[in-house]
C-alpha cells in the first residue's frame, strides 16, 4: 500500500548505496526532482537503468553516484551528446562508468517481461547487429513451433523504480497520462517504487481505460511540484526545450557542470 512520504524520506528509505535504480519517463515525465534528491543524499555505486538516460542521468553520472548504466540511447535528444556520460565513459571522470547497452525494442520488451514476472523477454531483434558481441546478456533461442531464431534478453527487475506522474488520489492511486513510456512497467517490474506527483486530488476522475497505477502496487508517493522540469507534465507544463539546448554548454565543461550542480541541486534544498 502506497505510503505518503516527503521526497527526502522516500529516497532515504528506498535508495541505498549500490541499489539498482530505474528512473523512467520517455522524454515526458522524467523524474528530475527525485534524481536530484538522490544526488543530494550522496548515494554511490548505483546501477542505473533507463532506456534514454537524458539529462537526469547525465547529472547523476557527473555527480559521481553511478557505477553502471544499462541503457539503449544515451543522448540529449535533438541536441547532441550527454557530455557527462561521455566524460565518464571516455575519460573516467569523475569515475569510470560501466555500460551495458541494448536496443530500445529489447529494453521495452525487458520492462514488459519484468512487469509480467517473467525471467526473459523474447523479440525479433538484434538481427545483424554487433550489439550482441558487446552485451553478453543478449542470447538467441529457437522457436519450438517454427524454428525461427529469436533474440532473448533478461527481464528488467530493478530494486527500486522512481517515476513521476500527474496526480494521485488520497488512496495513493496514480494517473499517468500522455506519453506513458514504460512507467507502468518500471513500477510493476521493481521490488519497490516511488512515484512523485504534481498534486494530490480527491478523485482521479478518469476514463475506464486510463493508465492508472493502483496504490497497492506502489511503495511510496511524494508530492514534487514541477517534479519533471525541464522535462514536462502533460496538462501541467511544457518541456523547456531551451534548457535542454543550454545544457549542452553546461555539461561540456567539468567546472561549469560542478557549479551548476552546486547551485541547482546541492544547495537547492529540494522540496522536502
Amino acid at each position, binding site marked *: 500500500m502506497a505510503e505518503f512520504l516527503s521526497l527526502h524520506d522516500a529516497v532515504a528509505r528506498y535508495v541505498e548505496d549500490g541499489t539498482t535504480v530505474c528512473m523512467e519517463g520517455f522524454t515526458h515525465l522524467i523524474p528530475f526532482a527525485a534524481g536530484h534528491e538522490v544526488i543530494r543524499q550522496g548515494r554511490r555505486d548505483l546501477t542505473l537503468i533507463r532506456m534514454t538516460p537524458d539529462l537526469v542521468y547525465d547529472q547523476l553520472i557527473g555527480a559521481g553516484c553511478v557505477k553502471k548504466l544499462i541503457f539503449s540511447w544515451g543522448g540529449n535528444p535533438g541536441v547532441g551528446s550527454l557530455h557527462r556520460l561521455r566524460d565518464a565513459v571516455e575519460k573516467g571522470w569523475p569515475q569510470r562508468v560501466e555500460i551495458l547497452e541494448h536496443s530500445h525494442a529489447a529494453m521495452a520488451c525487458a520492462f514488459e517481461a519484468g512487469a509480467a514476472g517473467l525471467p526473459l523477454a523474447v523479440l*525479433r531483434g538484434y538481427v*545483424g547487429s554487433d550489439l550482441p558481441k558487446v552485451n553478453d546478456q543478449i542470447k538467441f533461442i529457437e522457436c519450438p513451433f517454427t524454428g525461427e531464431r529469436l533474440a532473448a534478453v533478461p527481464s528488467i527487475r530493478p530494486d527500486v523504480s522512481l517515476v513521476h506522474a500527474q496526480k494521485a488520489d488520497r488512496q495513493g492511486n496514480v494517473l499517468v497520462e500522455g506519453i506513458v513510456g514504460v512507467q*507502468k512497467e518500471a513500477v510493476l517490474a521493481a521490488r519497490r517504487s516511488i512515484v512523485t506527483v504534481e498534486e494530490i486530488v480527491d478523485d482521479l476522475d478518469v476514463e475506464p481505460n486510463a493508465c492508472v497505477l493502483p496504490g497497492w502496487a506502489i511503495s511510496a508517493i511524494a508530492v514534487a511540484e514541477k517534479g519533471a522540469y525541464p522535462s514536462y507534465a502533460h496538462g501541467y507544463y511544457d518541456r523547456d526545450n531551451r534548457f535542454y539546448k543550454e545544457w549542452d554548454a553546461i555539461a561540456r565543461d567539468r567546472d561549469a557542470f560542478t557549479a551548476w550542480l552546486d547551485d541547482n541541486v546541492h544547495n537547492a534544498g529540494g522540496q522536502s
Partner: protein
Amino acid sequence: MSTEYTSSEMMTVTAARALENGMTCFVGIGLPSEAANLARLTHAPGVVLIYESGTLQTRPDVLPLSIGDGELCESALTTVSVPEMFRYWLQGGHVDVGFLGTAQIDRYCNLNTTLIGDYHDPKVRLPGGGGAPEIATNAGEVFITLKHSKRTFVKDVDFVTTLGFGRDGKGRDGVPNIGRGPTRVITDLCVMKPDPETRELVVVSLHPGVTREDVRDATGWEIRFAEALESTPEPSARELAVLRELKEKTNRKHAGDA
C-alpha cells in the same frame, strides 16, 4: 522554379518526396522528422507518422526537438506505451517505412550510432542504438537521410549498430520475417540506392549543381554511379515555403520555451 535554396533544403525536400500518401512511417528524430513532416504538409497529407515515444498518427505544428515532445502526443490519434509501440506496431508489421538518420554509414548501408574507435576504449562515444536496430529489420523498407562527408560515409562502419546488408551485402539473405532493408539514402549531394545484386550503394541521382567529383570527395570508398544517372528535381516554391515556415515556427517555439 529558380527559387534559391540551400543544399540542406534540397536534402530535406528530396527525402520528403520519398514518402507517399497513406504510407505508415516510423520516424527518427532530426532530419527524418523534418522530411516526414514536410511530406505530410505538402504532397502526402495522409502519411501516417509514428514516433517511438508511442504517438500514433501524429501531426505536430512544430518539429519536435526530442522524440517525445508534447506536440507529438497532443496532435496524435492516440498514444500507446513504448512496449506496445515496439511490439504491436513495429514488430507486429504495421510500419511500411522506417526513416532513419545515422552518424556513420558504409557501402552496404550498415549504420553506426554506437561509437567511433574501439568499443572498450572509444574515441567518440555516440548515443547508441535506440530504436534503429529493430526499425531497420521490422519495417517494410528503410529510408536513410544524412549529410554527405568522408567522416560519415565510410567503407566499413566501426560498429554495426543497425543492419543494412551486413559486412558482405548478404546480411538479410535467408533471414525469415525481415524487411527489405534500406532502399534509398538521401544526402545533401545525391540520392543513392543499393545495387539489386551486390547491395553496394550506387548514386542514382545527383542534386542540381553537384558533380560526380563532389560526391567522390565526400565518400570514403570508391563510390559507383548508375549508368542512367539522373538529376534530382529541384524543390518547388511551395515546398521551400512550407519547409521554411515549419523551421521558423520550430525555432521560435524552442527558443521561447522558458
